[in-house]
């Protein structure tokens, strides 16, 4: 651990300096604040446009499924939410690990900014999954592998937030929750595998699978567009949260004072 903690090498040669420059930039709260202020609205606009196209295609253009009728249209929000919930846990853990190893304040704040969004995506995946389950399975909740994994993921997100906020000292909070996130991200595939395995033992393959290869292109294209839209939304929302957290936590520093006065 000790040899990892040393910060990236000081700029002794020009090439090295250039190589690390982008990394150092991300270490500067002022630069990241400006970056977030610039890019969050753009990502937001892209996400909004993609949402509109995806919604139109998904709700109007795509034909009803021959088996499930119209209820399958929920997957256009369910599947991207589910994917993004896992992805955001991964990104959160990576950010937390960077914060832990290089003592990078911005990375710590990023991890904490992602956590509620990840919990939100998990919540959306759970709610839409059970709303899809009612017409498909006849009940709101089935102990299906994906839903169960999402439920545990929600607990992991809440655990991260709860642990982080239980500490008074910001640095201790960041380091402790980073360790939890890393343990969680190592465990997540195992949990996922065990749940999947448990599910096949208990339920067989009665659950309808949507990810078949023979999917109509008019159904596939809105799914892909919504997928892109969700990712852009994620980027925009994280930057938005990051921006306000940076401003809040750095209020005593010069760059915030300059920003506010000028």
């Amino acid at each position, binding site marked *: *651990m000790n040899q990892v903690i040393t910060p990236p090498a000081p700029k002794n040669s020009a090439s090295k300096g250039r190589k690390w420059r982008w990394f150092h930039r991300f270490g500067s709260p002022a630069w990241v604040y400006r970056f977030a202020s610039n890019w969050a609205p753009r990502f937001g606009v892209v996400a909004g446009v993609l949402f509109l196209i995806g919604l139109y295609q998904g709700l109007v253009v795509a034909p009803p499924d021959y088996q499930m009728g119209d209820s399958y249209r929920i997957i256009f929000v369910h599947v991207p939410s589910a994917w993004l919930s896992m992805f955001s846990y991964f990104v959160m853990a990576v950010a937390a690990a960077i914060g832990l190893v290089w003592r990078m304040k911005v990375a710590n704040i990023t991890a904490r900014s992602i956590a509620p969004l990840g919990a939100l995506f998990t919540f959306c995946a759970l709610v839409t999954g059970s709303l899809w389950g009612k017409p498909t399975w006849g009940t709101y909740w089935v102990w299906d592998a994906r839903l169960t994994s999402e439920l*545990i993921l929600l*607990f*992991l997100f*809440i*655990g991260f937030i*709860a*642990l982080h906020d*239980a*500490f008074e000292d910001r640095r*201790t909070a960041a*380091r*402790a929750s980073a*360790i*939890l996130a*890393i*343990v*969680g991200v*190592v*465990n997540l595939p*195992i*949990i996922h*595998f*065990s*749940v999947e*395995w*448990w599910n096949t*033992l208990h339920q067989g393959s009665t659950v309808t699978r949507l990810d078949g290869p023979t999917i109509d292109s008019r159904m596939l294209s809105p799914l892909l567009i919504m997928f892109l839209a969700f990712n852009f939304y994620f980027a925009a929302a994280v930057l938005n949260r990051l921006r306000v957290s940076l401003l809040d936590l750095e209020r005593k520093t010069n760059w915030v004072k300059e920003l506010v006065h000028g």
Partner: protein
Amino acid sequence: MQPSQGTGLGQAMIAIARRDLLISLRSRGEILLPVLFFIIVVSLFPLSITPDPTLLGKFGPGIIWVAALLATLLALDGVFRPDYEDGTLEQLALGPHPLSMMVLAKSVAHWLVTGLPLLIISPLLGILMQLSALGIKVMMLSLLIGTPALSLLGAVGVGLTVGIRKSGSLLSLLVLPLYVPILIFGTGAVHAAALGLPYSAHLMLLAAFSLFSLAVCPIASASAVRVSVS
């Protein structure tokens, strides 16, 4: 890291495990309480669900495993909390030996104090839950393989929360989701045995998980302890 002249790593680990064991043995409640808790929780289920033998045989393994999880959780705080409060933990962190190994010794002591008694008492509960002889055997095997992982993973959670004053429910929030694979593989083995199916795959997966925890958890809990004492 250079071990000091006085004690080798192995000696230090044994000394720590012995010390923790002695402290727990001296206050008998610490060993008896989780076991009593285990028995009481299990015996509540026939009262709340049904005393029907066939149904109990079905639910039994899951009930016993969940009770074992909760009993482990109950005693978990004792792994680091007393040492944190009197400063021993800080000394260990500053000491000459790798902290991960010291933490491992403490996890072993925790397992000897909680996991082992649960394992010993579990046949009795198996009988209460109407498990077959084979079922009891497999359940004991699964507990033997799985409970060390409970102690190891639990130590990470305690290491993270020991610096927080009221950490009881937070600890369970952090640790229980991580226990899910152990629960699934452990109960899966007993269920498979009850149905007359091969159960070795379940136990193998459980063993793999435990070995993986053995390799990873001491490092994670050592860094957690470092964060908490700093």
